[in-house]
């Protein structure tokens, strides 16, 4: 038996091992043979005879291969187990995304930390001033939060635009629907003329922009939100303080 034949027989049952592991087994056995042959060659042994003698001393290659494979038997199950965990996680995430639970939960959390400020940003031209606010009111089981007011120009008229969001009081809860339709923005004279809106949302949170015309000297606008059995009105100060517009 040659060295090549010996090593091939050892490796034959090791199909479950990775290429690196098989290479490591091969290398280790070759190194062993090298260490064992060297002193024999120094003593004058003929190379082929020395190799033959060393291979005999190694034992039955098929048996070594089988025993080696047995040491890695649990490895297949280990990888299978890991693959099953990953696959389960992927399926669960896909399912949650599919029915919107995960995205709703994310929206509910995100508006609490950083509500979107780009809603209807293109509607207002020549923006004079913008101010971030944090005005909150409970509406049923939800929280209405006014978080930004800007003053600029829309269709040739000085206009105030207010951004608001609504989310359930409980994190990850479901928010009541249609904040857009239930909300109006009035100027100081009670006029809601020029109202328009843009928004975004899911079952986790709703965010809308509403605007109304303002006159020089106006200091606030009023956000009105209708809910079952009640109407909430929140005074929203215009940026820059009293009398600047």
């Amino acid at each position, binding site marked *: 038996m040659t060295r090549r034949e010996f090593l091939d027989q*050892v490796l034959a049952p090791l199909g479950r091992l990775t290429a690196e592991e098989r290479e*490591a*087994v091969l*290398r*280790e*056995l070759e*190194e*062993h043979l*090298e*260490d*064992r042959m*060297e002193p024999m060659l120094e003593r004058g042994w003929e190379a082929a005879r020395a190799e033959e003698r060393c291979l005999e*001393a*190694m*034992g*039955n*290659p098929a*048996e*070594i291969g089988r*025993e*080696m494979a*047995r*040491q*890695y038997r*649990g*490895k297949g199950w280990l990888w299978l187990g890991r693959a099953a965990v990953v696959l389960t996680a992927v399926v669960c995430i896909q399912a949650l995304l599919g029915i919107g639970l995960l995205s709703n939960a994310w929206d509910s959390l995100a508006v609490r930390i950083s509500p979107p400020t780009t809603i209807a940003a293109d509607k207002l031209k020549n923006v004079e001033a913008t101010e971030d606010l944090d005005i909150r009111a409970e509406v049923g089981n939800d929280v209405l939060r006014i978080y930004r007011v800007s003053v600029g120009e829309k269709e040739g008229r000085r206009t105030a635009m207010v951004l608001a969001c609504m989310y359930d009081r409980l994190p990850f809860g479901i928010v009541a629907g249609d904040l857009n339709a239930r909300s109006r923005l009035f100027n100081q004279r009670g006029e809601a003329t020029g109202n328009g809106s843009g928004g975004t949302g899911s079952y986790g949170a709703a965010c809308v922009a509403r605007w109304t015309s303002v006159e020089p000297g106006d200091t606030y606008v009023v956000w009105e939100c209708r809910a079952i059995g009640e109407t909430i009105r929140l005074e929203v100060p215009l940026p820059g303080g009293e009398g600047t517009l």
Partner: protein
Amino acid sequence: MKKKAMEHTRLLALSLLGGEDMYGYQMIIELARRSNHVFDMKEGTLYPVLHGLEQEGFVEAYRKEAPTGRERKYYHLTRKGREALREEERSWKRYAGAVDAVLRGGAGVEPV
């Protein structure tokens, strides 16, 4: 009697590594030397044993240059391996003591 949890070769391999880190061929030489060539095992059978110990976390392997100047795969006994060695040594001594007692005519019983 409690069934021995570890084959003798595994115990011997752990015991050798208890003294210092070694590579496979070095272990074969050392085993033959210490046992006065009584344990003249088939050399290739050591490697499945070492890989098994590695898979179980009893030893760790790393590559290092040997005194011959060639790089070799060394095995190092881990803390888990050292604990296993202590336990197996105790188990082996109980076993060997019992065999010895039987060979001497039974534990305290005089031969007829």
